């Protein structure tokens, strides 16, 4: 379907995309995951023919995007990071323009636009000027434009940015619906979203492809251990003493956090659930637990592991990871 071979993009001396190589097969949802500035948008812009590559090639259904751009672009619908909207047009006018631009035959145009408007739920705003629409509606108009003509490949750059939680769920449903007949590629820096929607994940960091697999396989990649994080008023040595004889524990990490609070991460042996045991152990020692939460070896760990430099201590990674999830939750 899409083949990206040895793709390099340089901006002056800055290497934005560094020898990317991957294949995309039809009928699946692919997720591009990476921190800000990893080269996700640049890669998408090259794949859609907006930018030229310094080296390498992109084949869309066997057509080189640079050598046969018109043929290759027919197979792609693209929603860039910022939806490319003409704000002085109404939604309907804009979609009619996009349909004509994509060469949809006049007879089918009206019908198809109406169908897509219903699909992304913008039918009721079709006669409003785009400049008067909210961010969420604009995003949906942009999405409608990408889906127009039902191209085989739909590329979406951060499709859920600016949407409210209900709209995000709707968009996910829409993406799943589209994936029945189309290949969908979406990018995101929100892990939960990618895990939720995608069949296959490509993790990009500093322009390089660092991992590509299904979400389940990626989670397995770094081990299958779950862990429990606790905070308590006891000192680290007391914590270790309380947990000393408990079966099912692989490893304990502790850290003093000030105010007499100790943070500990307890890694379970495979297949065990030790949360109840921990609770009763601390209760019988008359040491109150301030926090107890289970953490899996999740995609976040994989992501962090792959995109952060090695010098960052594990505990720090675990800590920032929770902060990350906290901020993401607001987004989702």
């Amino acid at each position, binding site marked *: 379907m899409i083949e990206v071979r040895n793709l390099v993009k340089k*901006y002056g001396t800055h290497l934005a995309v560094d020898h990317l190589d991957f294949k995309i097969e039809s009928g699946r949802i692919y997720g591009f995951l990476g921190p800000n500035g990893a080269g996700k948008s640049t890669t998408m*812009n090259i794949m*859609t*023919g*907006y*930018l*030229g590559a310094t080296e390498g090639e992109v084949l869309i259904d066997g057509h080189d995007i640079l050598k046969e*751009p*018109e*043929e290759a*672009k*027919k197979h*792609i619908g*693209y929603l*860039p990071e*910022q939806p*490319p*909207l*003409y*704000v*002085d*047009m109404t939604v309907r*006018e804009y979609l009619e*323009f*996009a349909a*004509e*631009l*994509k*060469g949809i035959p006049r007879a089918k145009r009206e019908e198809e636009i109406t169908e897509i408007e219903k699909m992304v739920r913008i039918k009721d705003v079709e006669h409003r000027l785009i400049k008067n629409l909210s961010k969420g509606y604009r995003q949906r108009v942009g999405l409608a*434009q990408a889906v127009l003509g039902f191209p085989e490949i739909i590329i979406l750059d951060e499709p859920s940015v600016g949407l409210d939680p209900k709209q995000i769920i709707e968009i996910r449903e829409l993406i799943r619906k589209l994936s029945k007949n189309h290949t969908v590629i979406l990018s995101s820096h929100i892990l939960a979203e990618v895990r939720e929607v995608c069949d296959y994940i490509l993790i990009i960091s500093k322009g390089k492809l660092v991992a590509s697999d299904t979400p389940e396989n990626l989670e397995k990649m770094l081990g299958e251990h779950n862990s429990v994080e606790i905070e308590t008023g006891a000192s680290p040595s007391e914590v270790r003493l309380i947990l000393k004889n408990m079966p099912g524990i692989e490893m304990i990490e502790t850290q003093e956090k000030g105010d007499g609070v100790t943070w500990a991460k307890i890694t379970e042996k495979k297949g065990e659930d030790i949360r109840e045991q921990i609770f009763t152990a601390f209760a019988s020692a008359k040491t109150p637990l301030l926090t107890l939460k289970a953490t899996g070896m999740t995609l976040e760990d994989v992501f962090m592991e792959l995109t952060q430099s090695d010098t960052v201590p594990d505990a720090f990674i675990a800590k920032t990871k929770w902060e990350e999830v906290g901020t993401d939750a607001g987004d989702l």
Partner: protein
Amino acid sequence: MLAIYKRELRSYFQSMVGCVFIAFLIAFTGIYFMAYNLMSGYPYFSYTLSGSLIVFIVGIPLITMRSFSEERKNKTDQLLLTAPVSLGKVVMGKYLAMVTVIAIPNVIFCIFPLIIKSQGTAYLTVDYISIAVFFLLGCVYAAIGMFLSSLTESQIIAFISTFGILLVLYLWEGILSMLPSSAISGLVGVLIVLTIVAFYVWHMTENVVLSGGIEVIGAVVAIVLYVVKQELYENLLTSLLGRLALANVFTDITENSIVDVTGIALYLSIIAVFVFLTIQSIQKRRWS
């Protein structure tokens, strides 16, 4: 291409820029028409038209300034460049929309000679040719403006730079008369032009040998020619650069009723060159 053409044209009239341009040009010409042709009874409409040339210098940058700079700023160029339409068609679609906006007042101007005719003698051939060349000159200015718009993200910069260049072209005759006409100054002029070309080549290719070679060989040839055949350099600057006084082709018609066919060919070539340069400047941005 048709989709882009239609959208552009609609946008010119929705955003009022097109309407303002047309209204301003017609109103201005109308005042001259009243004064020269109707009140004073001068039978040539072409003369009236030459007074309207100044409106072009403000009006054309107004309609070209947003063509590519705004697309780039709003990132709507992503839609155009990822659609299955070639870049040449995108540029032509936009250019033809501008040409159409410029054509509308010129079509209306075609009525004016008939009004003169209804009152007495009119020189219809000269008048209609001058309207056609006036329109063509507008197209040349629009091509220059479009190119400048494709270089920047800011409409204001596009407007000011186009306005500046058109103004310089308008005043070119006067600027030219200040240039010296002796042979030695001709040589100096040639060397300056040569250096600019060599610098441009160096800037594009970063090849010191190539650009240095052009500079040295060119300079030697120029100096040898100067020694051998000095009279070649006399008035060289004025005759070479005089070609840049684009409006001369038009004023020749309005003032002397002389149609310079090579001048019209020059107009068409300049249009082709700037449309081509616009395509190239957008291509270059994709690759840098």
